[in-house]
C-alpha cells in the first residue's frame, strides 16, 4: 500500500479526469402495433460535470431524478442519447469495442443493490476476479493473490473467497462489490447509492472504507446518493439533480451551508435532524416529483417550488402564492373534482340551515377551503380574478378558469428555463432568482 497518488483536491489548472458535457439520455416511449414513438422519458437532460484527479464528487437527488441513469450513461453501460464524456483527454462516446473494454479498467461502477449485483452461482473469489479474467489475466495463481489482497483490504478474510454471495450480510456483500470494482485498479470509481440498503452502522463502515481507499489508492470517486448526509461526509464537490437536470453545483461546504437553489434548500431542510429539539423545521415540499416523460415547462421545479417568483405588481404571502399555483396546477392536470367538492358543500349546508338560505358564494368558499386559500386575498384585484375563476369552475368550465388564472397569475418560472450560472455565494445554481 506504499503507492503514492495525488490526493489533494484539484487546484484549478490541472486537467479534469472526467469531463461530462451535455450528457443526455432519453428513453423512447412507444405505443401501438407499429411501436410508433409517442414521446421520450428525459431521464438525463443535458448535464455538465467535471471530476478532477483524486477528487470526490457527489450527485444528489431524489429517486427518479436520473442520477443512476447518468452514472450508467457516462460509463456507456447504456448508450447516451447525446453529449460527450471526456475521460483523461479521450472522448469515450467515440470508443470502439476494444477501446471501451480497455476503458473499463480505468473506470468502474459500484452498484447500488449489492445483493443482485452478484451472480448467485459464482463464489466471492470468482466474482472479484471476474474483471481480471475478462480483461485477459490468465494466470489463476496471480488472480488468486490479487483477490486475497483485495479481500484483506476491504476488511474480509481470504477464506471468504470460497463463500457464496447469499451467505454474506449486506455490508459484507458491499465490501466484496468494492473489491470487485477495485480489482482492475481503476482511476475513477462511480459509486451508485453504495449504502442505501444498509444499516447506519454498516453504512458508516462502508463510507469509512471508501474514504480510506480514496486516500491510499488515490481514487477519484463520483458518489451518487439520495442521502445528503453521506455526500456531505465524503465529497469535496456536489451536484444537485432534479428531473434530469443539475440545479446546483459547487463545493459541498457552500451548497450545504448556503444553498442557492430553492430545491437544494428544501432538500437540505428535509434531512431529519439528529436533535429531537430541532424537529419539525423541515421545509415541506408539496406534491410528488413530476414524471420525466413530461417535465414541467420553464424551471422544472416550479410546480413544487416554495419560492416561486410572483408576477409584477403582486406581493402575496409566499405560502398563499404557492397555493394559487397549486390550484392552477390541479386545473392544468384536470384533476379538480368539482362534483365532490360542491356536493359536500350542499350536504354540509343541508345539515345546518336548509337549502333555501344557501348563498351563491357558498361553493367557491368551499373551493377556497379545499385548496387552503384564504377567504379573501389581500390584493383586491387578485381576489376578484380568483373569485371569477372559481365561479367558472363551479359553472363547469374549468378550461376558462385555468385561462383566467394563467393570464393573471403567470410566473416567469414557468416560462423561462434558468441556466446554471455562477452565483454570488460561489457555487453555480440554476434559478431565475439569480439570473
Amino acid at each position, binding site marked *: 500500500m506504499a503507492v503514492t497518488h495525488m490526493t489533494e483536491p484539484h487546484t484549478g489548472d490541472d486537467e479534469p479526469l472526467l469531463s461530462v458535457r451535455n450528457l443526455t439520455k432519453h428513453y423512447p416511449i412507444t405505443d401501438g402495433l407499429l411501436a410508433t414513438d409517442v414521446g421520450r422519458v428525459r431521464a438525463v437532460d443535458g448535464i455538465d460535470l467535471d471530476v478532477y484527479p483524486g477528487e470526490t464528487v457527489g450527485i444528489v437527488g*431524489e*429517486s427518479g431524478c436520473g442520477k443512476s441513469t447518468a452514472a450508467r450513461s457516462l460509463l456507456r453501460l447504456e448508450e447516451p442519447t447525446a453529449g460527450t464524456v471526456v475521460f483523461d483527454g479521450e472522448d469515450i462516446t467515440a470508443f470502439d469495442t476494444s477501446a471501451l473494454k480497455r476503458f473499463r479498467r480505468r473506470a468502474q461502477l459500484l452498484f447500488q443493490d449489492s445483493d443482485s449485483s452478484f451472480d448467485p452461482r459464482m463464489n466471492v473469489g470468482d466474482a472479484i476476479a471476474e474483471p481480471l479474467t475478462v480483461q485477459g489475466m490468465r494466470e489463476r495463481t496471480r488472480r488468486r493473490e490479487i483477490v486475497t489482497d483485495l479481500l484483506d483490504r476491504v476488511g474480509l478474510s481470504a477464506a471468504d473467497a470460497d463463500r457464496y454471495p447469499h451467505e454474506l*450480510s*449486506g*455490508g459484507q456483500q458491499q465490501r466484496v462489490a468494492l473489491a470487485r470494482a477495485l480489482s482492475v485498479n481503476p482511476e475513477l470509481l462511480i459509486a451508485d447509492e453504495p449504502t442505501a440498503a444498509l*444499516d*447506519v*452502522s*454498516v*453504512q*458508516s*463502515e*462502508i*463510507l*469509512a472504507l471508501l*474514504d480510506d481507499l480514496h486516500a491510499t489508492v488515490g481514487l477519484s470517486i463520483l458518489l451518487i446518493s*439520495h*442521502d*445528503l*448526509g*453521506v455526500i*456531505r*461526509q465524503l465529497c469535496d464537490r456536489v451536484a444537485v439533480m432534479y428531473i434530469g437536470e443539475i440545479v446546483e453545483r459547487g463545493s459541498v461546504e457552500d451548497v450545504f451551508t448556503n444553498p442557492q437553489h430553492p430545491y437544494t434548500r*428544501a*432538500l437540505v431542510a*428535509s*434531512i*431529519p*435532524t*439528529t*436533535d*429531537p*429539539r*430541532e*424537529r*419539525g423545521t*423541515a421545509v*415541506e*415540499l408539496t406534491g*410528488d*416529483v413530476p414524471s420525466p416523460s413530461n417535465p414541467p415547462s420553464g424551471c422544472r421545479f416550479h410546480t413544487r417550488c416554495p419560492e416561486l417568483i410572483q408576477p409584477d405588481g403582486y406581493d402575496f404571502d409566499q405560502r398563499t402564492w404557492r397555493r394559487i399555483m397549486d390550484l392552477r396546477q*390541479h386545473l392544468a392536470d384536470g*384533476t*379538480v*373534482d368539482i*362534483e*365532490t367538492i360542491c356536493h359536500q358543500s350542499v350536504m354540509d349546508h343541508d345539515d345546518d340551515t336548509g337549502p333555501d338560505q344557501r348563498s351563491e358564494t357558498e361553493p367557491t368558499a368551499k373551493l377556497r377551503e379545499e385548496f387552503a386559500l384564504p377567504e379573501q386575498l389581500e390584493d383586491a384585484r387578485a381576489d376578484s380574478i380568483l373569485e371569477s375563476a372559481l365561479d367558472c369552475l363551479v359553472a363547469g368550465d374549468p378550461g376558462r378558469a385555468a385561462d383566467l388564472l394563467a393570464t393573471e397569475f403567470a410566473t416567469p418560472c414557468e416560462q423561462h428555463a434558468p441556466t446554471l450560472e455562477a452565483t454570488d455565494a460561489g457555487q453555480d445554481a440554476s434559478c431565475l432568482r439569480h439570473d
Partner: protein
Amino acid sequence: MTQDDPLLTVENLHTSFHTDDGTVNAVDGVDFTVRRGETVCLVGESGSGKTVACESITQLFKRPPGEITAGSIVFDGIELTNCSERELTDIRGARISHVFQNPQNALNPVYTIGWQLLEAIELHQDVSRAAARAEAVELLDRVGISEASDRLEAYPHELSGGMKQRVMIAMALACQPDLLIADEPTTALDVTIQAQILRLLKDLQAEYGIGILFVTHDLGVVAEIADRVVVLYAGKVMERGTVYDVFETPCHPYTRALLDCLPGRGSLGGIPGSLPDPMAPPAGCRFHDRCPDAVPDCSTGDQPAFESVVGEDHEVSCLHYRTAAEPTVLESGVEPRRPSERTDGGDTHD
C-alpha cells in the same frame, strides 16, 4: 382519554423461531409500553428483533416456525397472548393496524386502491357500500391525496411510492385503530417524501389520539417523531427513555455508537464486529464483544438489570455506564445542547 394509562404493555416478551438449524430467539425478553397519543420508537439494526417484536403483538409472523414462548402483551386490558386466532383477527386492522416498509408489496397489484380500501373498511365495519365509499374518499383526503374519488379507481402501479404509503396509512386508519404499528414506513422513500409522511403521521396522531409504535433503524427519523425510544440489540433492550434523554445523555455504549454512526455526527467507521449469532448469543451483555468500554464482568451472567438514570423513565442495561460515560453530564444533571459535544472514551473525535 387518560394519557397515563398504557394502551399497550409488553412485558418480558420472548419470541422464537424454530428452524432446521436450531432455535432463534429473535426477541429475548423485551419490555415496553405505548400510551395513547404517544409515539414510541423501537430502534435497532437489522437482526435486532425490532420487526419481530412488533409482529409479535398481533402475532403476524408465520406460526410455526415463529412462537411467543413467554411474556405478556396487554392491549387495552386484553391479554393478547391468550387470544385465539379469531379474536386476534378481530383486533388486527380494527384496533391495531400495521403499516409496512414496502408499500409496493403491501398493495395487491391486480385491484384498484379503492377496492382494497373498501375491503379494509367493510371487513371490520357493518356499513353500506355507499357509506364505505364515502369513508374511503374521506380517508384518502385525510392522508393528503388530492382528487380522492378519482384515485379510488387507480391501480397501485399508477401511484408513486409516497402516494402508495399514504394509501397504506389510509387503509391502516380505516377502522379508527387505537394503536398504529409502523414498521420502517419511510425507509423506501425519498427524504422530501419522508418528511411529508412523518408530518402526516404526527398530524393524524394529534387528531385521533392514537398510539404509534414506530420501528426504524434511522435515528434521524427517531429524532423527528419519537416521544420515547427503546433501543434494541440482538433481541434485548439496551436502553429506553424519552427521546431527549436518549439523544442527549445516551448511557448505553451501543446507543452512543449508533448515534456516532449518523452521517455528520461522530466519526466514520461504524461499530466494529458484527451482530452475535442469534442461535448462540453471548453470555453477559449482548453487546460486550463490540463494546469499546467492556470490562471482564460484562461477559458473564445475564444481560445486566435495568438501572434508572437521571430523566423520566430513563433506564439502561449496562454495568458500567457511569464510568463509561462522561460522569459530570449525568451527575450534575446539566444537559448538553447536542450529544455530539459530549466527550466520552476519547476515541470518537476526529
